[in-house]
């Protein structure tokens, strides 16, 4: 029904645009990671593996990467612990309030990420809301300093940011479970716990995987929360990249780290998609 010209008109412009502003930039990132900087701080366009050697030679890069992965892993686990039961409650227990509560989970997403991170800073700081509250009710008599400028603050803030994101796919997968499967499980004599364990949970695994991947990948690459709340012990891998692109002025090395991150992330996305396929029924 659609002519050749019509199909060309809807296909070619988006393809060209994406090639120019998406494929080319990612390809450039790859190229940059093999270039170097001259002493006069110009980019040298000749190929070398030195940047990648540097990554494995200097301990701080891998150490920071592992610390970032550990922070991201904690964020993922906490987001699941908060998001899964919430999604379960909304899907099975909330009854008529389901739609309203669903909106209530979404609304925080409309407050800017930066502003929410900032709000946590005003809560956790030594003169902040939490510390003055604790002193006000005489639970402590001096401010607790570990609250802000620590990995704890980063994990807390990122968990706050990504809980709704993990909630959403889990809720969607729970909503798709045919309710008569659950009835059948009950009729066949399974206890509620058995029903959850053997029917509901396996069917919601694709949602869990999607949510967990999202939380892990996005918190792994975050650099604003660590800058704002992390202090020296909360530095993450992207902070190193930011400094390499700023004051340290070594774009190629920064590109090598970013490209490593890109490969890691795409590997995780691929893995999660494979697992999702394996777990999805129908």
């Amino acid at each position, binding site marked *: 029904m659609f002519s050749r010209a019509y199909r060309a008109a809807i296909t070619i412009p988006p393809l060209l645009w994406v090639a120019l502003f998406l494929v080319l930039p990612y390809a450039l990132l790859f190229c940059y990671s093999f270039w170097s900087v001259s002493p006069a701080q110009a980019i040298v366009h000749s190929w070398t593996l030195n940047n990648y050697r540097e990554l494995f030679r200097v301990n701080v890069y891998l150490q920071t990467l592992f610390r970032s992965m550990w922070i991201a892993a904690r964020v993922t686990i906490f987001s699941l612990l908060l998001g899964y039961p919430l999604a379960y409650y909304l899907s099975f227990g909330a009854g008529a309030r389901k739609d309203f509560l669903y909106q209530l989970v979404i609304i925080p997403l409309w407050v*800017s990420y930066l502003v929410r991170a900032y709000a946590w800073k005003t809560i956790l700081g030594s003169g902040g*809301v939490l510390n003055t509250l604790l002193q006000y009710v005489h639970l402590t008599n001096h401010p607790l300093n570990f609250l802000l400028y620590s990995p704890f603050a980063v994990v807390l803030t990122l968990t706050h940011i990504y809980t709704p994101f993990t909630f959403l796919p889990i809720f969607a997968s729970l909503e798709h479970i045919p309710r008569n499967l659950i009835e059948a499980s009950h009729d066949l004599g399974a206890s509620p716990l058995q029903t959850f364990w053997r029917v509901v949970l396996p069917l919601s695994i694709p949602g869990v995987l999607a949510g967990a991947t999202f939380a892990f990948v996005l918190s792994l690459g975050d650099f604003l929360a660590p800058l704002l709340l992390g202090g020296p012990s909360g530095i993450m891998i992207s902070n190193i990249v930011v400094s390499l692109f700023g004051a340290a002025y070594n774009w190629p090395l920064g590109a090598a780290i970013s490209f490593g991150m890109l490969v890691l992330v795409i590997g995780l996305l691929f893995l999660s998609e494979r697992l999702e396929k394996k777990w999805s029924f129908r």
Partner: protein
Amino acid sequence: MELPMSSPNRSHWLPWHAALVFGFLYLPIVTLIVYSFNGSGVGGFPPRDFTLDWYRELFTDDAIWNSVLNSLFVAFAAVAIALALGIPAALALDRANFPGKALFRRLVLLPLILPGIITGLSLLMLFREGGMKLSLVTIILGHGTALISVATTEVFAGLQKLDRAQEEASLDLGANYWQTFWRVTLPNLRLSIIGAALLIFTLSMDEIAVSFFLIGRDNTLPLEIWGRLRRGITPEINAISTIIFVFSLAAIVTWYRLRARAEGRVEIAAELVEAAS
């Protein structure tokens, strides 16, 4: 249907857990709003000295308002770019075959799934190699490109519900493709397009990780806030954030009303058709 779930052993703690999570999600937002009215600044419990001073100060702060204007400009332009490319891309995914179609579908999603720093840096390198000076234009190109997938996904979903017979009828009756697109296809996709536009607009207004690397001389609002945070905390940030929050809330509510009304109309129409046949 919540029949088997109302068994006692789980309904006990689930509502409490939900309340706790909501508390956690809303604590910073409530704090933000409360302390925008706090006379003695941010922090310090209990809040005291109710004041509107921070709002007064905000309204005379030209740098903030300039950045708001910049952000609005960027967001509108990003919506235009993302729609101008996202709608054809959705049509192409729906009704054309081209080499690399599956790859294309994944590729446009990448900027949303990858940490923003990767997309931001990659574009920074593109603009540097292309000799382009960083400005609001580079941010617009970044946002527009990163958000194409939002338009594509929404419009593609809308296309699945579209009755192709209408377009066929239009073509049979002598309209050309262009007329059919403007008069049949687009009006039918209206809701998906408005939804996508709203989402792209708010995402662009909030975006910071990509903008961080593409910023020239003019700040967007998130970058202006970022700059101030580096210098220290001021309740003016609470005030501007509260205002933006109220506006976004109004936008979501309007959008839901709009959609509910439109969906209601579709349902009524469907019932009428059913009754008539």
